[in-house]
């Protein structure tokens, strides 16, 4: 698939704290930080578990399936790369299977669509593999009601 947003935004680069997450996205897997001691999920990643203060933290695979916690429709571009983008949708997605931690992504489809807080969404891995960059993002799409 093509990318949701136009090219030219800063590319994410892994650091010592979040490298497993970025590697996971490239492999079509969602890995979220989880405490090996108390099983607490936490996101964004930290060096310590905020619940039990253990430093033994793992990254565990979870289902890329969530619920829209909030959203915003952006109209005014604040970066030159988005000058001709037009409106776009950002969603904050809670992951019920991973302690309800939240991820930021874009909601695929019509940027003018009505967005439902509480609506169910599934992840879509968006791979950027051109000459200048090599990373993957996690986007979201509505799950149709059955």
């Amino acid at each position: 698939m093509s990318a949701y947003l136009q090219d030219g935004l800063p590319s994410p680069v892994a650091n010592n704290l979040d490298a497993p997450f970025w590697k996971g996205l490239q492999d079509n897997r969602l890995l979220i930080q989880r405490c090996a001691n108390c099983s607490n999920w936490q996101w964004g990643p930290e060096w310590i578990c905020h619940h039990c203060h253990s430093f033994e933290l793992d990254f565990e695979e979870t289902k890329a399936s969530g619920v829209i916690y909030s959203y915003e429709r952006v109209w005014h571009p604040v970066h030159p790369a988005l000058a001709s983008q037009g409106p776009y949708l950002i969603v904050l997605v809670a992951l019920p299977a991973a302690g309800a931690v939240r991820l930021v992504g874009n909601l695929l489809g019509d940027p003018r669509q009505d967005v439902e807080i509480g609506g169910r969404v599934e992840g879509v891995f968006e791979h950027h593999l051109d000459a200048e960059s090599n990373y993957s993002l996690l986007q979201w799409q509505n799950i149709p009601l059955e």
Partner: protein
Amino acid sequence: MSAERTLRGRAVVAGVAETTYYKRGESPDDEFKLALEAITGACRSAGISPQEIDGFASYSNDRSDASRLAAALGIHDLRFANMQWGGGGGGGSGAIGNAVAAIATGMAECVVVFRALAQGQFGRFGQGPRRNTISGEFAHTVPYGLMSPAQMFAMKVTRFMHDHQVQQAALRAISLASYQHAQNNPRAVMYGRPLDEQQYDESRWIVEPFHLYDCCQENDGAAAIILVSAERAQEFDHPGCYLLSAAAGSHHRAGAPVHNAPDYATSAFKTLAPRLFEMAGVGVSEVNVLQSYENFTGGVLMSIVEHGFCTPEECNDFFTLENLTAPRGRVPLNTSGGNLAECYMHGLGLNIEAVRQVWGESSNQVSGADISMVISGPMVTPVSACIFGSEATL
């Protein structure tokens, strides 16, 4: 025996000043010079020499370093150089609290709280990063097009409005109140530029639910407030304006990365507000006039709710232009024009306006403004707030 642990009544405002307020990029002066102009102006307001200053307090990593200021002003005995950590404009009232804490404990005698900001010289707050790569927390937001302050806060407000059925007209009333007040304030950048409902409704979206007029300006300027021990109140020409309380901080994991604060749809004042009123010894119904930091109107709305001026369910009735405007509104709000219409002096202009209300010198004076409150920097962390009172409140 230990003294009571409070800031209440320990310090009095000796003087205030601001530079000319400019649109972003229009200041003829560098940021450091703006800081010096505001500080020396506050000294004139107080009737003291700049060499009497022995402490500096600021916030948001102000670039005008205390030691450089002390050198430039020829100060002989620098005793207090304080920076409120992080939180951008959320530090304004916190810096005042820090200054008064130093005075109350004898660490300093005469502290200036200041903020200088030249977005023309140093770059705009409202634009995204200009680089090829990004790492750390922002790597999880910027590649999705989430990078400006408006974009960082809009989802909190959307969730709050959704949960409590708050209508756009409530945000609009906050914006209109600031613009209406600015029409009486010659210092205001939007003086002579009124705003009506139709203009607001027809203005472009920046990011829903924020129209253009829900967003603060970007400005150049500086502001300063000088505080000294309350025992010296009689030395100054101004009526007494005392700090009654200040509180700073935020709730459980407010700073959790990537929008993961457990309590998300909040301005971050729920834990502070009870401490603020308890130290001041006043209730919310006794507040005569309120300044509340507008980065974006939605944060103002949530912060006013979280301090108890109304419940979330009352927002649509409470946030009306009539209720929010001086002189007779229920809670006159942002009576100088605030960050939206006076100047985005990173919120310190709101503290100056709160002092002027107690002094009886506002351009939108509320009669009998004995208790004058400031809320600094909603939706960031740490946030802060303070309450000033007249001599009658001591």
